[in-house]
């Protein structure tokens, strides 16, 4: 059976449409899912860290939907958010299956509380469109995040975990587009008018304290040699990229003053910033109010 147009195929159909987690597709059906010979709890925790990074930034970018400075940008940020959401689905599904307690991607995304999330602070901080930032701050965050993820995923392609290696190889191509998009905006605004330069400078200053956490190895990452990437290895590559962009934008690299930790703990340990609870409230509200809801 074939159709003359895409809409015809939507009629008379037994499956739920256009919503993740409701159709027949299990996110990893058919993918090579051998579990490498490492501690399963550690591997599940690592998949959660990576999955939460992607999920939380995806949500932050989606907040720009209908609020971006121009329609094309609205579409661009939503597309980037969608790529990250796709990566998050695969990573959370992997986390759930390695954990082995029956939690699927939805249970992990919507039914965990703040202290159980493992994303870095850079993904969660308010960078706009609401208080805490503006468009320049948002592209500053996206530049740093995607530069760091590219360095991480490049190495993760060689992971002993076949799912992580496959997600990284695929995600890398998407992240290259995200980084170019952010970098081009940083240059355009930094090298623009006095006003745009000042706002771009302020945006870079706002996100800079959150860089330090990106390179701090968590004990889980250290124990998973061969599967996980050591974040300390990524600093010089990411620095090189950020310096090239800042220089082209006529901006100065801010001093490294790391954001405070709580007893040495940060996002990877489940300690989050104040705005994160509000983000989760919005993201999880529908699923918790109407458990099992489908479109």
């Amino acid at each position, binding site marked *: 059976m074939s159709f003359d147009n895409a809409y015809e*195929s939507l009629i008379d159909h037994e499956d739920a449409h256009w919503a993740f987690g409701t159709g027949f597709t299990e996110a990893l059906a058919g993918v090579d899912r051998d579990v490498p010979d490492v501690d399963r709890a550690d591997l599940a925790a690592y998949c959660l860290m990576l999955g939460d990074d992607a999920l939380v930034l995806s949500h932050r970018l989606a907040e720009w939907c209908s609020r971006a400075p121009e329609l094309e940008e609205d579409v661009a940020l939503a597309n980037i958010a969608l790529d990250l959401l796709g990566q998050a689905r695969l990573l959370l599904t992997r986390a759930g299956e390695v954990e082995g307690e029956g939690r699927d991607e939805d249970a992990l995304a919507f039914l965990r509380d703040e202290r159980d999330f493992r994303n870095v602070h850079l993904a969660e901080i308010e960078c706009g469109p609401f208080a805490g930032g503006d468009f320049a701050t948002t592209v500053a965050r996206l530049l740093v995040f995607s530069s760091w993820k590219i360095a991480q995923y490049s190495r993760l392609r060689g992971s002993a975990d076949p799912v992580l290696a496959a997600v990284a190889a695929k995600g890398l191509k*998407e992240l290259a*587009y995200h980084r170019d998009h952010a970098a081009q905006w940083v240059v355009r605004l930094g090298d623009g008018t006095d006003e745009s330069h000042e706002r771009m400078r302020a945006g870079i200053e706002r996100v800079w304290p959150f860089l330090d956490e990106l390179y701090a190895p968590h004990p889980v990452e250290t124990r998973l040699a061969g599967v996980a990437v050591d974040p300390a290895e990524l600093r010089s590559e990411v620095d090189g990229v950020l310096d090239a962009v800042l220089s082209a934008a006529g901006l100065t690299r801010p001093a490294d003053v790391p954001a405070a930790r709580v007893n040495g703990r940060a996002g990877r340990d489940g300690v989050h910033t104040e705005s994160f609870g509000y983000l989760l409230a919005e993201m999880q509200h529908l699923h918790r109010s109407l458990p099992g809801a489908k479109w």
Partner: protein
Amino acid sequence: MVTATRTRTALEVAAQVRDPELPVLTLADLGVLRDVTEEDGRVSVTITPTYSGCPALDEMGADLRRSLLAAGFSAVDVRLSLAPAWTTDWISEDGLRKLREAGIAPPSRLGPRSTGPVPLNLTPPSQRVPCPRCGSFRTSELSRFGSTACKALRRCADCAEPFEHVKEI
């Protein structure tokens, strides 16, 4: 002999299913149909997503299943593969032509790529993408991200029409 015919039929039916977002292309043209096997009327189809978050994936699976069941197969198992990752180089020559005819600029061929550092592009690509309507090379990119994850939006300076471009990945 009969089995071989049934397997070929399954492959032909699966190959004719159209992409929900680019309906001028079949899943085979797009290069997302990776494998079709058949045994005793039960078909297993493997597809791969274009982008990680491609929302059309569930739809493709549902369409494959429906088409194969309608063709008389008793069960359809849709599987996903992630590696190797999809690339626009897998769009067939026929697919490139169909895109052009539908007013969508097809991607250029990327060829083999290195596994080295990902190059940083600080200026929008100066790549020459001909206008699918008038053939002019005087076109510019309006936005890297278009109506779907896989398309950019461009405009032609000669015929003044905007058009979509399936961007290389």
